[in-house]
């Protein structure tokens, strides 16, 4: 009796098409590109700010564009779904909280994250005069 184990090949470049779970994982991971993008945009804003009032106003008017508005809107939704909401959903796994004998349900920790997020966002909007 001879053994000849068969190794099923796995594509290193397209393995994630194998299931919906894997595809959603990839969609989640590439939000890093959004984070990087908005970091770069913000740094450019800092550059304009450091250049004085004229530099800043030039930057502000350069932002005005319905095309950009559409892009920002799409990226906001994508970011919320695949970054913020996913991050909050995974947070309880990394930080179990045990009170007495029972572990705090994951839901409680998720809600706490949402609470913090809403609070911080409202505070920032208030400070910036958006609301």
């Amino acid at each position: 009796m001879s053994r000849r184990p068969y190794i099923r090949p796995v594509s290193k470049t397209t393995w994630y098409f194998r299931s919906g779970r894997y595809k959603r994982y990839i969609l989640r991971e590439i939000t890093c590109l959004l984070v990087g993008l908005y970091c770069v945009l913000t740094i450019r804003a800092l550059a304009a700010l450091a250049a004085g009032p004229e530099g800043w106003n030039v930057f502000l008017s350069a932002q005005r564009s319905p095309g950009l508005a559409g892009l920002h809107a799409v990226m906001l939704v994508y970011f919320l779904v695949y970054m913020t909401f996913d991050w909050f959903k995974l947070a309880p796994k990394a930080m179990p909280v045990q009170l007495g004998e029972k572990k705090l349900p994951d839901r409680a920790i998720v809600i706490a994250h949402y609470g913090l997020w809403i609070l911080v966002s409202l505070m920032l909007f208030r400070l910036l005069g958006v609301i």
Partner: protein
Amino acid sequence: MAIAKKAFVWGLFAAGGTVAAIVFPVLIVLFLLLSLGRVPEGLQFGSIHAFAQSWVGKSGLFLVLSLSLWHSAHRLRTVFHDFGVRSDALVAKAVYLAALVGTLITALFLFKM
């Protein structure tokens, strides 16, 4: 036994991810408002410049930007790996260098405010 260097970078990644998850929606909304021609009071030169000059503002902006840059860099390294790019050492050097450069540039501009 010495803990792998990845522990340090992962720590930055986790901190950066939490910060980005919470703060970036607001940031994107601000860019959205600007693109619609709406400039909130807080983004008029006087207010935002004063904020960026204050120590609270400088440290807040630096922390958010640098942690987010490191988060993005580390995750991008994983993305390359997941897409089949095997030269991890090279990718790591490239993304962390980019994050370092971004961090330094951020510090520079905040210093010059």
